[in-house]
């Protein structure tokens, strides 16, 4: 075994354990802020795995999108609404934990079975390394043009929806009730809109 491949092995082992332990931490830790930061670590680990697979563009995109945007957004949301309040005790919490644990172990065994029964040694296309950026661009603008555009329209819809929800003051009437909406956004009372409808 030469130096390059053994370095690759060691890197893979480290990255793999970072991803698995980090993901376990995201699910199992009580402190939601730790979970969010660990999620960032998991995303970084996955980016490292992409790098090992010679997909440097995908790795950088993973860091930019998942760590730089998604994870920062999650952290923002947590920190802006971080109230120190005790969560209500849910009935039968232990049974729920046992059940979800069972489902997860079942899924794990299913995946392990798939892993062991599949023949992984298929001759796939050879890695093109640095050329992959151009290749991705070509695919996005030829045979994957429609999915690409549909995804962008979907994101645009989500964005407009979010803006409408966040800025109800720009609309004169509320969409749900038809009542005129209070212009004073900050002083607005926090009554749920849909509750009035159901009481009528």
């Amino acid at each position, binding site marked *: 075994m*030469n*130096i*390059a491949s053994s370095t690759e092995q060691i890197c893979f082992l480290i990255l793999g354990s970072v991803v698995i332990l980090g993901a376990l931490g995201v699910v199992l830790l009580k402190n939601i*802020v730790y979970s969010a*930061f660990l999620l*960032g670590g998991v995303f*970084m680990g996955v980016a490292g795995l992409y790098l090992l697979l010679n997909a*440097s*563009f995908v790795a*950088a*995109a993973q*860091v*930019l999108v998942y*760590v*730089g*945007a998604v*994870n*920062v957004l999650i*952290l*923002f949301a947590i*920190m*802006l609404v971080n109230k120190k309040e005790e969560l209500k005790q849910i009935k039968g919490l232990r049974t729920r934990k046992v059940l979800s644990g069972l489902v997860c172990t079942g899924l794990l065994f299913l995946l392990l079975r798939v892993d062991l029964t599949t023949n992984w040694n298929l001759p796939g296309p050879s890695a093109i*390394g*640095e*050329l992959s*950026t151009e290749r991705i661009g070509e695919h996005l603008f030829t045979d994957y043009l429609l999915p690409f555009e549909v995804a962008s329209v979907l994101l645009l819809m989500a964005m407009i929806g979010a803006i409408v929800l966040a800025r109800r003051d720009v609309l004169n009437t509320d969409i749900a009730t038809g009542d005129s909406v209070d212009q004073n956004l900050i002083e607005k009372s926090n009554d749920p809109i849909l509750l009035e409808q159901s009481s009528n």
Partner: protein
Amino acid sequence: MNTGLDLELSFNNLLQGFGISSEISHILWLPLPMLLVLSSALIGVLVTVWLERKVSAAAQQRIGPEYAGALGVLQPMADGLKLLVKEDVIPAKADGLLFTLGPILVLIPVILSWLIVPFGQNLLISNVGIGIFLWIALSSIQPIGLLMSGYASNNKYSLLGGLRAAAQSISYEIPLALSVLAVVMMSNSLSTIDIVNQQNSFGFLSWNIWRQPVGFVIFWICALAECERLPFDLPEAEEELVAGYQTEYAGMKFALFYLGSYINLVLSALLVSVLYLGGWGFPFPVEWIANLLGQNVDTPLVQVFTGSIGIVMTIIKTYLLVFLAILLRWTTPRVRIDQLLDLGWKFLLPISLVNLLFTAALKLAFPIAFGG
């Protein structure tokens, strides 16, 4: 294509001459450029701190540091030494782990970004294909470190500072990336080497600043915002937030923030010079001058000479930009947070989008001048 100096090849050949296998000589070579770039980044910071003190003093009609070395050149060393021996305080109610991890997460991406900064044809650590995109991706990690330290300090000023820093950094990343994209479109490559080579065919006349004047201004504004320099130093606005996310930090952890922000400033200036000012290029092509003097560009002596000129040119351009940043610090008032976000989202973003579209149109119309 002129390959210029290739130190790695000569180093490997030298070691193989002593009977060492190529793998081992490669491993011996790997740490050398990294150490060199790390130390040059640190020296760059020392010079910048000295410049900042001296130029600030001149802008305020003071003398500035004077007694530590000639003209106070040792003052940054003294600053660093002071921070090094200071007591490392972790506030009692702070979250110790995140508190320690925050400054490290801020510093590491900045240092990693030096991977792609070229000082010459082969004078960079790694000519990775994704080049400038790597820098954009890495600089998006920084807000997490800022949020982490803001949260872990358990202090309302720190939390507000951290959130402001993250918001600022996210908003200005988009126009920054779009203006980089316009340059990338012209040079058909993400690699910093190709971007510089594309600019250096006709000396200073072919620098990107003439073809991308709007992009240059947008990039510079956004780079200042990303470095949290005045007029955009809201995260640490001392009148409002004490010192923002740095409030609870002391000693070496504070020094890491300090180091990170100055390395980032030098890095941004370097990248402006790479993207818009022709990188290591001399205002007149070195090949023309060599031909004029009757020298062959490929002879070793001329190559060493052009390589040194390249490094000197990069450093001169960079420090001119750093000087400009320091002057801006003392001549512009700080913007408010709503003005900052308005400027980013309602002004810079549309303009950079139009700039990108315009560049694409020009590239189709005049493929000779805009890299067809």
